[in-house]
C-alpha cells in the first residue's frame, strides 16, 4: 500500500503501536502452530461436542440381520458393539460386525452412478429406465430379470412384490455364494417343507457334530457361540463328539474328534442312526470310525438331551437323517418358518440364472447387491454373456467384477448410512437407522426398488415406516420410537413350529472317488468375498494357520508328503481342464485325501485392498456354488507360493504348565495345584488403590473367532501393515490369539489363547526404558507413553510375552498399506486414543480411555466405579464372554471371583512377573469309559 510521507511520519504513540504489534507478531510466530476453532453457526439439538452417543441399528450378514450399537462422536461412527436387546445374538459381535465401520469409510466405495465406465447421474438412470425397460409394462416386463442375494428385510420383500406387480413377467433369481442348500434339502425331505432349524447348543447334554461348524463364521455364529458359552463351564458339562473332514472351531472344542474324508460322514451318520432303530443296512466302518460311533451312540443314549448337527458341505440325506435323529432324541432345536421366503434352492436358482443368461432370454438385467461374475466358475464367459444384454444394471456398494460387465452401476449406501429392516435367523425383526448422513451420492436398496417400480419417490425412512404402519398399532410414533431405540421390533420373534421328521430314505453311498476331495467353506476373514476390501479382515489371522492376506489350501501331512510339499509351498490343483495355482497349508488333523479351502479371495475388482489377494477357489467348480468337489488332483509347482502367517510355531515344547495347561476336567485342579506361582519375590506387592484392574481370560471358552482382535483394532486405532510387513514379522495387533497343538493321550488337541498385554505388576519392560516411557500407574496398569517413547525397543526385547508392537514405519500416516490413512479412513479413528507415529512402541492399554471415562463419570458423582462399568473392547466383543475385566480389589467383582477358580493360572508364572492378565485353563470332558 502506498502512503503519503505525512502518514509515514511516526509520532511517539504510533511508534509504540508499531512496537507492540511487531512484538505481538514476533511472539505469535514462535513455537506453536496457529490453530483455529470453528464453532457451529447453530448448534444441533442435544449435541455436546466430544461426547460419544450410542444408537441401535442392524447390520446385514448374508441377508440376515444382527443387532449392533453404533458409537458416534461428533456425528462420526467410530465403533460398533453388539446390541444386547437382540436376544438371538446374545450381545457379542464377530469380526464382520466389528469391521463394518471401516468399510463405511472405505475410499474404494463407489460414490456416483456410472454408465459404460463414465460418470452419470441418478436422474439420467431413472430417465433411461423409464423410457427403456421400465416402460415395458405392456409386455409385463418380459425378459426382465432381478438377481439378489438372500433377502429377509420385510420392506425389501414388499418392494420386490411391488416390482413384480408392475412387471408380472419379471424373473427373480436369489442365491448366496455361501449357501445353505443342504440343510434346506434335509428339511424338505424330513418335514416336507422348508424350515429353518435353530439349535440350542446350551441345552444339549451331548452334541454329535457331523462335519458341521456351528462355531464357524455365519449368520448363526453369534447365537451358537453365546449358547455354547452358557453350558461350557456348568456343573454338568456337555460332551462334544466331532467327526469332520477338516479343522473347524467346533472341532477344536471337541471332547472326542476323528478326522475322516467327507464321504465317510454319511456312513458314520447311518451307523449312528442304526443304534436308534433305523434300519440303515450296516455300512462298512473303519475301526476308529466304529469306536467313534459306539462312544457317541452310548453317550447319546445316556444323555438327557442329545443334539446332532450336520454340516453345509454334507448331502441333504445326512441332514434329513440328523433331523430324524434329533426328533427321536428330543434335541433342543427350534423349527422356524424360514426368514427367507424364497422357495427355490440357491444352487438351482443360480444355475437357472446362468442358463437364462447364456440362452439370451434376459433382455434387461437388474443385479441387486450380488456378484455372480465372481461367484460363477467361468467368470469370463458369464461376463461376456451379461455384456451382451441390452440393458444391465448392477447396484452395490462397490463397482465389483459384475459391475464391470454391466452397462450401469448404481452405488448403494452402506448399511450404517441407510434406513431399513432385517430379520435375524431367529426370526425377530431388527430396524436399521443411519448413524451418519450418506457420505456420497448413494441410495439404499429400498429406495432403489422404489425407483425401479417408478412409484412416487420416497425416502428409505418413509418406505420403512410405511411398511410398518399397519403393525404399529394405535400410537405408531410411540411404537416407532421404542423400536428404534431398542433396535428390535418388540416381540417380533416368531414362535417355533412343531413338525415331526419322517424316517429318511437312503441313496446308496458310493465309495470315495479317486483324487482328493476339496471342501470349499466360507472364509473366516472375508466370508464369501464381499468383505475382501476390508484391510482389518484381510489382516485377521485365520484360526489354525494364522494366515493373513490369502487363502491357502489346507492339506493333510500325508497328502503333502505324497506330493512333496511343505507348509507354504506352491501347489497346483486340477479338476478336468480347470487348473489353479495355490499355496499349501499343511495341517495335522486334516484327514488324508481331503483338502479344505476358503472362498472369497482371488478377486480382481474388490478395490485397492482386496485385489489379487489369494486364489479364487470356485474356478474349480462346475457352476460355482458346489461346496464339495471330488476328484481333484494336486501336485507341487506353480509360482513360488508364499504364505503370510503371524505365528510360526504351534508346539509348546514341553512348556504346557507354563503356558497352556490342558487336562481332563477331573485332573486339571490337581495338575495346576503343583505349579502355583511363588510370589515370594523381593519386590513388594503394589499398594492397594481403590482400583486394581485385572483381566481373566478363559481358554476353555475361547473359540478362536478373532472378534476381540478386530474389536481392539477398531477401538485403539491399530494400524494395518500389509502382507510384506507381516512376512518380516511386524504384525501390529495388540491382542493376538495364539493357537497351540497339544499331543494328548487320545490324539491331537488344539487350544486357543488370546494374549493381550499382561500388565505385570513387576513388569520387565519398565526398568529397562531409559526415558520412563513404560511405567506403572496407581491402578496397576502398565502404561506406554507414546509421546515420551524414543524407540529403543528395550521394553519389547525384555518382554517375555512379546506383546509390544513397534511402528517400524509410519503405519498410520503416509506409509500405511493400501487405503489406510486416506482422509475418509482417518474419520474412523477413535479421538480418545492417540494415533501412533513412526518409531514409537505401542501395546494393549486395557482400553485406558474407557477406564478414564468411567472414572470421570464416577468421580463427578463422588462414587467409585461399579463392577462391569468398564469393559475393554475385547471383552465387550467376545461372543462367548471368555474375557472378563474388572477391579481385583473388589472381592465381589467378576474377576476377583474367577481368580479363585481351580482352573486359574498365570502365563509364565515362574518368572514372577505377577501378571494382571491371568487365565483359566482349558479342560475336556472324557467320554464314557475313557479317562483323561
Amino acid at each position, binding site marked *: 500500500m502506498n502512503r503519503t510521507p505525512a502518514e509515514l511520519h511516526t509520532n511517539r504513540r504510533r511508534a509504540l503501536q508499531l512496537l507492540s504489534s511487531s512484538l505481538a507478531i514476533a511472539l505469535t510466530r514462535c513455537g506453536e502452530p496457529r490453530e483455529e476453532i470453528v464453532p457451529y453457526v447453530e448448534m444441533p439439538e442435544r449435541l455436546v461436542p466430544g*461426547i460419544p452417543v450410542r444408537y441401535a441399528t442392524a447390520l446385514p450378514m448374508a441377508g440376515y440381520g444382527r443387532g449392533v450399537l453404533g458409537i458416534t462422536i461428533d456425528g462420526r461412527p467410530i465403533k460398533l458393539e453388539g446390541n444386547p436387546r437382540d436376544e438371538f445374538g446374545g450381545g457379542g459381535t464377530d469380526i464382520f460386525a466389528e469391521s463394518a465401520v471401516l468399510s463405511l469409510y472405505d475410499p474404494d466405495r463407489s460414490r456416483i452412478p456410472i454408465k459404460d465406465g463414465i460418470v452419470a447421474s441418478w436422474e439420467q438412470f431413472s430417465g433411461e429406465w423409464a423410457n427403456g425397460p421400465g416402460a415395458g409394462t405392456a409386455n409385463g416386463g418380459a425378459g426382465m430379470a432381478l438377481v439378489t442375494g438372500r433377502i429377509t428385510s420385510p420392506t425389501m420383500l414388499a418392494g420386490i412384490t411391488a416390482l413384480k406387480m408392475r412387471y408380472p413377467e419379471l424373473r427373480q433369481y436369489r442365491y448366496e455364494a455361501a449357501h445353505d442348500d443342504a440343510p434346506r434339502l434335509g428339511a424338505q425331505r424330513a418335514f416336507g417343507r422348508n424350515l429353518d432349524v435353530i439349535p440350542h447348543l446350551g441345552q444339549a447334554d451331548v452334541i454329535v457334530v457331523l462335519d458341521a461348524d456351528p462355531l464357524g463364521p455365519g449368520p448363526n455364529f453369534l447365537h451358537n457361540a453365546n449358547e455354547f458359552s452358557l453350558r461350557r463351564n456348568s456343573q454338568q458339562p456337555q460332551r462334544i463328539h466331532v467327526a469332520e473332514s477338516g479343522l473347524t472351531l467346533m472341532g477344536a472344542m471337541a471332547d472326542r474328534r476323528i478326522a475322516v474324508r467327507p464321504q465317510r460322514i454319511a456312513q458314520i451318520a447311518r451307523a449312528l442312526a442304526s443304534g436308534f432303530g433305523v434300519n440303515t443296512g450296516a455300512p462298512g466302518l473303519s475301526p476308529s470310525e466304529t469306536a467313534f460311533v459306539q462312544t457317541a451312540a452310548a453317550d447319546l443314549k445316556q444323555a438327557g438331551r442329545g443334539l446332532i448337527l450336520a454340516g453345509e458341505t454334507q448331502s441333504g440325506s445326512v441332514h434329513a437323517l440328523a433331523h430324524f435323529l434329533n426328533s427321536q432324541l428330543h434335541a433342543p432345536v427350534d423349527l422356524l418358518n424360514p426368514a427367507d421366503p424364497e422357495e427355490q434352492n440357491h444352487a438351482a436358482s443360480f444355475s437357472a440364472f446362468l442358463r437364462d443368461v447364456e440362452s439370451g432370454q434376459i433382455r434387461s438385467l437388474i443385479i441387486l447387491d450380488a456378484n455372480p461374475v465372481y461367484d460363477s466358475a467361468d467368470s469370463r464367459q458369464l461376463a461376456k454373456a451379461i455384456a451382451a444384454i441390452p440393458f444391465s444394471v448392477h447396484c452395490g456398494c462397490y463397482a465389483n467384477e459384475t459391475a464391470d460387465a454391466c452397462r450401469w452401476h448404481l452405488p448403494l449406501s452402506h448399511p450404517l448410512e441407510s434406513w431399513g429392516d432385517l430379520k435375524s435367523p431367529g426370526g425377530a425383526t431388527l430396524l436399521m437407522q443411519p448413524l451418519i448422513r450418506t457420505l456420497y451420492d448413494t441410495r439404499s436398496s429400498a429406495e432403489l426398488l422404489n425407483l425401479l417400480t417408478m412409484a412416487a419417490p420416497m425416502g428409505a425412512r418413509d418406505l420403512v415406516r410405511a411398511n410398518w404402519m399397519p403393525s404399529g398399532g394405535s400410537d405408531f410414533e410411540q411404537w416407532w420410537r421404542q423400536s428404534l431405540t431398542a433396535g428390535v421390533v418388540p416381540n417380533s420373534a416368531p414362535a417355533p413350529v412343531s413338525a415331526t421328521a419322517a424316517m429318511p430314505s437312503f441313496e446308496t453311498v458310493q465309495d470315495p472317488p479317486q483324487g482328493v476331495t476339496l471342501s470349499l467353506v466360507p472364509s473366516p476373514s472375508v466370508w464369501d468375498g464381499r468383505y475382501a476390501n476390508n484391510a482389518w479382515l484381510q489382516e485377521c489371522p485365520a484360526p489354525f494357520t494364522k494366515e493373513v492376506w490369502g487363502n491357502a489350501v489346507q492339506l493333510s501331512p500325508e497328502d503333502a508328503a505324497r506330493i512333496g510339499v511343505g507348509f507354504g509351498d506352491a501347489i497346483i490343483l486340477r479338476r478336468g481342464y480347470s487348473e489353479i495355482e495355490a499355496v499349501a497349508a499343511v495341517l495335522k488333523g486334516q484327514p488324508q485325501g481331503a483338502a479344505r479351502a476358503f472362498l472369497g479371495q482371488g478377486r480382481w475388482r474388490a478395490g485397492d485392498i482386496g485385489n489379487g489377494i489369494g486364489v479364487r477357489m470356485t474356478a474349480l467348480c462346475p457352476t460355482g456354488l458346489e461346496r464339495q468337489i471330488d476328484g481333484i488332483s494336486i501336485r507341487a509347482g506353480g509360482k513360488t507360493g508364499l504364505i503370510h502367517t503371524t505365528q510360526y510355531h504351534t508346539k509348546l515344547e514341553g512348556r504346557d504348565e507354563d503356558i497352556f495347561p490342558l487336562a481332563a476336567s477331573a485332573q486339571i485342579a490337581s495338575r495346576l495345584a503343583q505349579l502355583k506361582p511363588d510370589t515370594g519375590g523381593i519386590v513388594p506387592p503394589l499398594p492397594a488403590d481403590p482400583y486394581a484392574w485385572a483381566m481373566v481370560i478363559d481358554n476353555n471358552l475361547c473359540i478362536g473367532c478373532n472378534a476381540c482382535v478386530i474389536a481392539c483394532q477398531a477401538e485403539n486405532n491399530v494400524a494395518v501393515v500389509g502382507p510384506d510387513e507381516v512376512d518380516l514379522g511386524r504384525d501390529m495387533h495388540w491382542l493376538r490369539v495364539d493357537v497351540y497343538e497339544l499331543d494328548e493321550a487320545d490324539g491331537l488337541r488344539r487350544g486357543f489363547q488370546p494374549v493381550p498385554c499382561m500388565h505385570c505388576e513387576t513388569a520387565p519392560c519398565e526398568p529397562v526404558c531409559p526415558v520412563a516411557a513404560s511405567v506403572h*500407574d496407581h491402578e496397576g496398569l502398565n502404561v506406554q507413553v507414546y509421546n515420551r517413547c524414543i524407540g529403543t525397543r528395550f521394553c519389547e526385547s525384555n518382554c517375555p510375552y512379546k506383546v509390544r508392537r513397534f511402528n517400524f514405519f509410519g503405519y498410520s500416516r503416509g506409509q500405511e498399506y493400501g487405503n489406510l490413512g486416506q482422509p475418509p479412513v482417518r474419520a474412523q479413528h477413535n479421538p480418545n486414543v492417540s494415533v501412533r507415529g513412526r518409531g514409537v512402541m505401542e501395546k494393549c492399554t486395557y482400553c485406558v480411555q474407557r477406564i478414564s471415562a468411567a472414572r470421570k463419570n464416577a468421580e*463427578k458423582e463422588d462414587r467409585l466405579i461399579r463392577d462391569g462399568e468398564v469393559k475393554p473392547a475385547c471383552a465387550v466383543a467376545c461372543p462367548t464372554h471368555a474375557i472378563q475385566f474388572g477391579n481385583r480389589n473388589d472381592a465381589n467383582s467378576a474377576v476377583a471371583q474367577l481368580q479363585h477358580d481351580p482352573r486359574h493360572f498365570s502365563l509364565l508364572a515362574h518368572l514372577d512377573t505377577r501378571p494382571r492378565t491371568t487365565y483359566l485353563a482349558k479342560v475336556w470332558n472324557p467320554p464314557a469309559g475313557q479317562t483323561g
Partner: protein
Amino acid sequence: MAQLFRPGANTVARTVMVAIIAVPILAIVLTFALWESPYATSQFVTQNQPVPFSHEHHVGRLGLDCRYCHTGVEQAAFAGLPPTHTCMTCHSQIWTTAAMLEPVRQSLAQNQPIRWVRVNRVPDYVYFDHSIHVAKGVGCTTCHGPIGRMPLTYRGEPLTMGWCLSCHRHPGSFVRPRDQVFNPDWQVPEDQDRAGAALVRQYMIDTSGLTDCSRCHR
C-alpha cells in the same frame, strides 16, 4: 629462530580452555531460560481475532456466566465455543449496526461459522478434560488467568507440563469451593492451605494417582 607465537597467545590459549568448559553449560542454561519464557510458551500473547471479543466487557462488566457461551464445560472435555446464534441472542437487539460485529452478522447471514484463533492450546497427545476439573473445584481463572479483566483474550498461564504438574502434585493449593468455580474474581484466601486440604478430602481427590502418565496421555 623467530618466535612462532606472540605473548598474547597464552591468553588466547587460556580463554579457549575456559570456554571449552563454560560455553556448553551456559548454552544449556540459556536455552532452558528461553524455553520457559513467554516467548516459547505464548503466555500473555493476544491473537488477531475476526471479532475483538472482550471478556473484560462481557464477563467483568456485564457479568455473563462462563457457561452461557462455553456450554460444554460441565459435561465434556471441550468447553465449547458459542455458536453464532448465541452471540445474536443479544446482538440482534443491541449494537445491531456496530461495525465491530459485522463478521458475526455475516456469519449468521451466510451461515458461515466464525473462525476464531485458538488461544489456549495443549498438544494433541494431552487428553485434557474440562468437565472433571470443573467438577473437582478447579476454577476457570486458575488456568485461564484473570479472564474477567482481559480486553482481548490471551493465554493466562504457560500451560506447560511442569505447570500442570504443579497443581496435580498439590491440588490443595488451587481448588476452590464449587460455588466459586465460575467466579472470575475469586482470590486465593489466606487459609488456602487448610481450606484446600479440606476441599480435596471433600471432593475425594485421590492425589496418589493424579501424576500417573495415563491421566493425561494415552
